[in-house]
């Protein structure tokens, strides 16, 4: 991905502006996932993303490869979406309580064992995807950057400008919320199956 981006960017900077379409095509859907997680509205997300892509194009001559293109690109997408949230008077922040690293102290009860479920089942797949969508607004973007954009904690810090502790705490909480929601739903599946058998 890194080398592919670099090759296309060199063509663009060499004057082949049409080559930018390749870069847009390659990144648009994953970027859309992030934009939608932040803005929660398809039209706004698409407009913000369009704006971000134009900004990225205009800023390309100043890009110095100090980070990967992907990190730099997502920082612009993230900032455009964050400023859109700012216009809506919804700054992209959560309360100190949620951001506190003590969130990592949350432990499962020792008797809290996940119910048996086929881990490859399409049912579980659907449950997890649905619960990912239902993650609180503050966690969605961090979660998407970690799993969809496949970024490290440090890269997420670079994109979001959030402190490392906050990034870790959000991700931790998001994963535990997801785990608990999924376990609850699996329990219901199991329950309904047992009822049917009985």
């Amino acid at each position, binding site marked *: 991905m890194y080398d592919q981006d670099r090759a296309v960017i060199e063509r663009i900077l060499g004057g082949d*502006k049409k080559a930018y*379409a390749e870069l847009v*095509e390659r990144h648009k859907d994953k970027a859309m996932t992030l934009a939608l997680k932040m803005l929660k509205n*398809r039209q706004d997300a698409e407009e913000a993303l*369009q704006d971000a892509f134009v900004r990225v194009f205009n800023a390309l001559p100043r890009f110095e490869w100090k980070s990967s293109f992907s990190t730099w690109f997502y920082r612009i997408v993230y900032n455009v979406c964050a400023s859109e949230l700012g216009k809506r008077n919804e700054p992209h922040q959560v309360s100190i309580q949620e951001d506190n690293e003590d969130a990592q102290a949350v*432990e499962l009860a020792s008797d809290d064992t996940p119910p048996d479920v086929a881990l490859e089942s399409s049912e579980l797949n659907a449950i997890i995807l649905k619960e990912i969508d239902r993650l609180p607004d503050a966690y969605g973007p961090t979660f998407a950057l970690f799993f969809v954009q*496949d970024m490290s904690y440090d890269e997420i810090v670079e994109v979001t400008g959030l402190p490392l502790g906050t990034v870790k705490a959000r991700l931790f909480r998001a*994963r535990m919320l997801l785990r608990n929601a999924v376990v609850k739903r699996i329990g219901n599946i199991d329950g309904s199956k047992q009822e049917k058998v009985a």
Partner: protein
Amino acid sequence: MTHLTTKQILQFTDGALDYASQAQCTQHLAVCERCRKEIDLQKAISKIARHQPPIQATSGFVQRVMAHIIPQQQKSWKTKLIDSLGNVFAMAMVLAILGYAISNPSLFQIQQQSKTQSFIPQSVSDTYAKFIQSVGQQAGEATQQVMKSTGRDNSNMISLTILSLLILGALDQFVLKRYLGMRMKH
């Protein structure tokens, strides 16, 4: 039995533990079903989260972005053309009105020093005069108003220059650009 912490479970899932901690966890997992199940569930969640289908941008998204990027260049040379057309036209008009003023001493009451009636040849000044008349009566009338109201020679020239600049500036800004700009868009 002391179970793995949630943090350890997530780090084990991510393969983010150092060698010693990894070995310690593996030892515990060999004897603890609860932690094993927990890690299996976390692995399943991570796998699905990682492979979740990205939300697709609507069709035509790439074209819409590119429409903002390629026409930027086209627009700039069109704008440049319109700008230079306007400027060339405005300069020609200023020169025309100044020429007309200089070549019509009776109208502008320019003091004649002696023999020289005008340093502009008669044929050229006639052409200027015709050109200016064709520009429009309004401009002509306004010009004559200024010329009548100001008695002194130098102020005649200055007023005339300012007036012509104003007229041509307005023409350049509002008429020429708007008209040509509209035509370029269609």
